[in-house]
C-alpha cells in the first residue's frame, strides 16, 4: 500500500485491506484466513467515519432499478437484444415497448427499434442465471432520437457526475446542454448546437482520462470556457 495523495491509499489486487473498509465483491474478497483483500485496483479513502473503496477499473453488472443506455444489437421474434455495455446482453420485450398486444406476422420490429439504435431503459430483473430483462416503461425512457452517446469506462461514471452532482452541473450550466450519465458507462449529451456538443464530448473524455487527479472540476470549467471562445460560441 502506498500513499497516493492526501487521505487516499492506492491498493492493488492481493493487497490486504482494513476490515473496516466498506466494499462488496467483486471489489474485495476474503481469503481462506479471513483477510479482506482488494480484488481490483482501487483507492481506499476516508469519508466521515467510514472507509470506502473506490474501484479504478470496473465491469458493469446490471442491478434491478438501474437506468442504463442500451444499444440495440439484435432483433428476435418478440424481443430486442440490447447491448448494455455489460458481459450480459439484455432483453427488451416487444409488448413492453409497444404497450399493446403484438402479432409477429403483421408487425415489423425493426420499424420501431432497429439494430444500432440507442435506447434508454431500466433494468427490471437480473439474477446472473438468465439475461437481464429491461423495460422502457417509466419517465424519460425509450428510444434516443437526438444528441450523442459517448462511451466511457463504467468506473469513471461517478467522476462525470461528481460529488453531489457538481461535475454534471458544470457540464450543463456552462453549455446549456442536457447530460445524462448512465451507470453502465454511456453518457447521453443533448445540446442546442453541434459546437456545444463537441465541447461537452471533449470534456467528458477529458474527465475519463484524468478521472483521479485533483482540481478536475475547476479544470473542466476552464476547458469548457476556453473551447467556447475557440469555437466561436462565446466571445
Amino acid at each position: 500500500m502506498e500513499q497516493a495523495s492526501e487521505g487516499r491509499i492506492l491498493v492493488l489486487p492481493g493487497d490486504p485491506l482494513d476490515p473496516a473498509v466498506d466494499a462488496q465483491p467483486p471489489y474485495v474478497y476474503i481469503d481462506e484466513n479471513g483477510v479482506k483483500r482488494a480484488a481490483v485496483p482501487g483507492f481506499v479513502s476516508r469519508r466521515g467515519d467510514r472507509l470506502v473503496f473506490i474501484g479504478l477499473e470496473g465491469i458493469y453488472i446490471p442491478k434491478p432499478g438501474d437506468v442504463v443506455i442500451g444499444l440495440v444489437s439484435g432483433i428476435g421474434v418478440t424481443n430486442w437484444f440490447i447491448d448494455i455495455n455489460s458481459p450480459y446482453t439484455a432483453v427488451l420485450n416487444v409488448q413492453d415497448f409497444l404497450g399493446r398486444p403484438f402479432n409477429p406476422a403483421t408487425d415489423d420490429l425493426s420499424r420501431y427499434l432497429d439494430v444500432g439504435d440507442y435506447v434508454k431503459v431500466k433494468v427490471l430483473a437480473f439474477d446472473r442465471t438468465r439475461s437481464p430483462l429491461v423495460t422502457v416503461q417509466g419517465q424519460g425512457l425509450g428510444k434516443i432520437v437526438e444528441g450523442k452517446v459517448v462511451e466511457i469506462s463504467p468506473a469513471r461514471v461517478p467522476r462525470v457526475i461528481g460529488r453531489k452532482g457538481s461535475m454534471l452541473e458544470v457540464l450543463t450550466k456552462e453549455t446549456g446542454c442536457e447530460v445524462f450519465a448512465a451507470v453502465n458507462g454511456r453518457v447521453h449529451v443533448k445540446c442546442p448546437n453541434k459546437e456545444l456538443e463537441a465541447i461537452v464530448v471533449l470534456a467528458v473524455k477529458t474527465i475519463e482520462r484524468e478521472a483521479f487527479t485533483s482540481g478536475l472540476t475547476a479544470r473542466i470549467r476552464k476547458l469548457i470556457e476556453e473551447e467556447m471562445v475557440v469555437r466561436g460560441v462565446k466571445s
Partner: protein
Amino acid sequence: MKVEGVKLIREDGLRHDGRRPEDLRPIRMEVGVLSNADGSALVEFGRTRVLAAVYGPREPPQKFMLLPDRAILRVRYHMAPFSTSDRKSPAPSRREIELSKVIREALEPIVLTKQFPRTAIDVFIEVLQADGGTRTTGVTAASLALADAGIPMKALVGGVAVGKVEGVLVLDIDEVEDSMGEADMPVAGAPDLGLITLLQLNGVMTEEEFQKALDMAWDAIRRIVDMEKEVLRWKYNVGGDSK
C-alpha cells in the same frame, strides 16, 4: 538457436551473459499498451518480449462452452512467426496448445471467475521475441493485463524459471542455458497468498537442488510481483489511463 562452444559458467563464476547465478535479467513492464483490448501489458525479461491482451468478461460466440456457475477462462499462448531466429509456423503447435493450458491453469486459481457466471474471459499471449522463459513471462504479462482490465482477482501472479547449468542453479535462464543446461524449472505463483500456481521440471535435480531452486524462484517471484505493483501504481498516480 544453435550455439556451440559457449561456456555456460565462466571461470570467474559468472554466467555466459555476465550475470551471477541468482540474478534476473533486466525486466521492463508496461500496462495499457493496446487501446482496443480491455486490458493489456507488455513484459520483457531481457530479450524475451511478450504482449498480453485481455477481453471480457463477455458472451462468447459459442454458447455451449459457458458454465452456469462461473466464467470460463480462455487462454491462447502463441509465438509470432518472427519471434525465433528460424521462422516459426504461425499455426498453433503441440507445444503452444499445451502451454496455453498450463498458463490457463496458472491463472484460474487467482481469477474470481464466480463473479461472472455464463461469460468468458479471453487472454491472448503473444510472444514477440523468444529468448527462454516465455511461459513465465507470459503469466506475468497476463496477470498485469487482467489487473489492467479490472477483472477481479485474488492476487497478482508472477513467474520465473530456474535452471541448472554445469551443476550450478541459475535464476531466470535464457534460451542458451535452457537448451544446453541440465534442468529447467518454470515456477509461477502469487506471493501475497503464498500460492504456487505453476510448477514444471524438465531435467534432473536432487531433492536439495529442487528445494534450493524453489526458494530462488520464490524470492524472484516476490520481486517480480513487486515490480508489477510498481507499474500499476505508476499508471494510476502519474500517467493517465491510456484507454
